[in-house]
């Protein structure tokens, strides 16, 4: 499928340009944040010589473009520098904290798709009915409170008052699961420990749902409005005039073309989760990237800030490319067209 390959190549190229832009922006921001990173890192008792030594090591006294040059040089070797906060390579830190965050986001993303899309389909099919209104209220509520408010409310109800779910952590202490992928739900399965898997799944339900709620709302609302629009297209009237079953029309004929515009936004929502995960993780003591992210920003840990933002943005761009490919897969017009729009 050459058009798809071309699309992929073009998107990768654009993403790379954007990523360079992101790195410049965040690099600059990180460096103009007030405060001397070396002083913060070394603490109050370090001598001025020690602070200066660290500044030299970080090239802090060079001009910004020169610093950026050093950064690029290191980056080309896959080196994001050492975190001043944990004294470990930023890549190591991110590799350690990212899987937990990703696991949370993936589960939330699945919830968003598996709950949000069907709700949207139902609302569109029965538009104007009580089911439509009910879905609307539910989805609007979902998007009307930040995920941390939902996190707190869900926690209060389902962990404090009705202790149905655990209130913190990824898995009970009693399970020792060797870390292979960092994704606990995968690692437990790799270890063949089904009870541990169930336990991990049980831990992830509340945080993921809190994180997913606004995405569910967005996805459902979008699917509904796109589908309502699709319902006005001639091919739906044609399907109806041929008496295709309503359910089939909803689930296939109207849904699939509607999914195409929805997917782009769902991709963006997915990306928004990367940010919101920061808040949910804080509430559920989820050992992900968030605490690290907040801590490094507060401590002006240059390398870690740039590294974290860069990784998150790269993931965002990857998600968007995946979404584009998915759209290309669903939309034959892109798959077969000679021009990549």
């Amino acid at each position, binding site marked *: 499928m050459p058009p798809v390959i071309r699309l992929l190549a073009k998107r990768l190229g*654009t993403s790379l*340009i*954007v*990523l360079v*832009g*992101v790195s410049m*922006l*965040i690099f600059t*921001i*990180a460096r*103009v*944040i*007030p405060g001397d990173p070396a002083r913060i890192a070394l603490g109050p008792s370090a001598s001025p010589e020690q602070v200066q030594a660290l500044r030299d090591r970080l090239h802090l006294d060079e001009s910004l473009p020169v610093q950026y040059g050093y950064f690029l040089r290191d980056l080309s070797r896959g080196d994001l520098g050492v975190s001043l906060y944990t004294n470990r390579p930023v890549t190591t830190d991110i590799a350690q904290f990212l899987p937990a965050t990703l696991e949370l986001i993936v589960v939330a993303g699945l919830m968003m798709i598996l709950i949000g899309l069907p709700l949207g389909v139902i609302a569109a099919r029965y538009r104007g009915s009580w089911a439509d*209104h009910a879905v*609307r*209220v539910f989805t*609007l*509520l979902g*998007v*009307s*409170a*930040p995920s*941390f*408010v939902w996190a*707190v*409310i869900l*926690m*209060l109800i389902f962990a*404090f*008052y009705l202790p149905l779910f655990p209130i913190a952590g990824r898995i009970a202490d009693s399970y020792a699961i060797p870390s292979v992928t960092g994704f606990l739900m995968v690692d437990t399965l790799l270890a063949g420990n089904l009870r541990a898997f169930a336990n991990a799944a049980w831990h992830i339900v509340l945080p993921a749902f809190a994180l997913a709620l606004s995405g569910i709302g967005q996805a459902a609302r979008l699917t509904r*409005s796109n589908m309502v*629009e699709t319902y006005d297209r001639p091919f739906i009237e044609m399907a109806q005039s041929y008496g295709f079953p309503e359910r089939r029309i909803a689930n296939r004929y109207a849904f699939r073309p509607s999914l195409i*515009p929805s997917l782009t936004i769902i991709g*963006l929502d997915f*990306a*928004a989760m*990367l*940010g*919101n995960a*920061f*808040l949910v993780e*804080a*509430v559920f003591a989820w050992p992900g990237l968030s605490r690290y*992210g*907040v801590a490094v*920003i*507060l401590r*002006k840990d240059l390398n870690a*800030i740039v590294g*974290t*933002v860069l990784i*998150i*943005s790269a993931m*965002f*761009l990857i998600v*968007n490319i995946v979404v584009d490919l998915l759209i290309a897969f669903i939309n034959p017009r892109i798959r077969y067209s000679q021009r990549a729009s």
Partner: protein
Amino acid sequence: MRRSLFILLRNPLSLTGVILITLVVVSAVFADFIAPFPEHAGAVVDFANFNKAPEWPYLFGTDLVGRDLFSRILYAYRISLVLGIVVLAIAVPIGVTIGLVAGYLGGWTEYVLMRITDVFLSIPPLVLAMSMMGLLEPTLTNGMLAVTAMWWPWYTRLVYNLTRAEKEEGYVLAAEVIGASKPHIIFREILPNCVPSIVTKMTLDLGFVILIASSLSFLGLGVQPPTPDLGSMVADGAKYLPDSWWLTVFPGLAILVAVFGFNLLGDALRDILGVDQ
């Protein structure tokens, strides 16, 4: 006008939205008269009445230094609304102009402007705002700046897409044929046709700005005490769950009510203005 009323009244949810927003706006504007303890919006400590569950005269209970939560929530609405309006007042003109120019002119201008927009879009909003807040002192003004910085690209994107569609419309061709100037075509011909979508998005966004501002203050980057702020109230109160539940639940509900109301209103506006998508 009659049509608008018909659409509003036909849908009980839209009506609910109008009512909720009216309530929120009224409480924000008339907080001085409605709040039972207006002075509690500031630095007041009353250790005789601290951490009290809801009871008369403290409708929503009191916080840890004895201030009436209900009064503070009313004043917090005021801040949230001002913040939302100011952020949009700055972000929308910037985003809209860039979107219009990129969409209409095309070519290199479009490529450069849209890639810059992509850069801002591909940093998750919260992360971007956090970095910005790290850069600036955590004051209300800077909070607004940070939120603005993350907000404009969304308008650019919206208006850019609209413009590209509008550009194909016959009236743009007609204006070009007549010889109208580019600024005229962009701002007088195309822009008015984007206004309904922009206004609708603004209504929805007023809610979201409140959300984002709350999220920022949840992370400790927003409005500073003693100024009441819904997000920080939720964040600070969360430490005292489940015992002092009112500290979190009422500010949380307050956010919910306002944003829910703006969403309903935005939906209604979308119907009335006939905006698609």
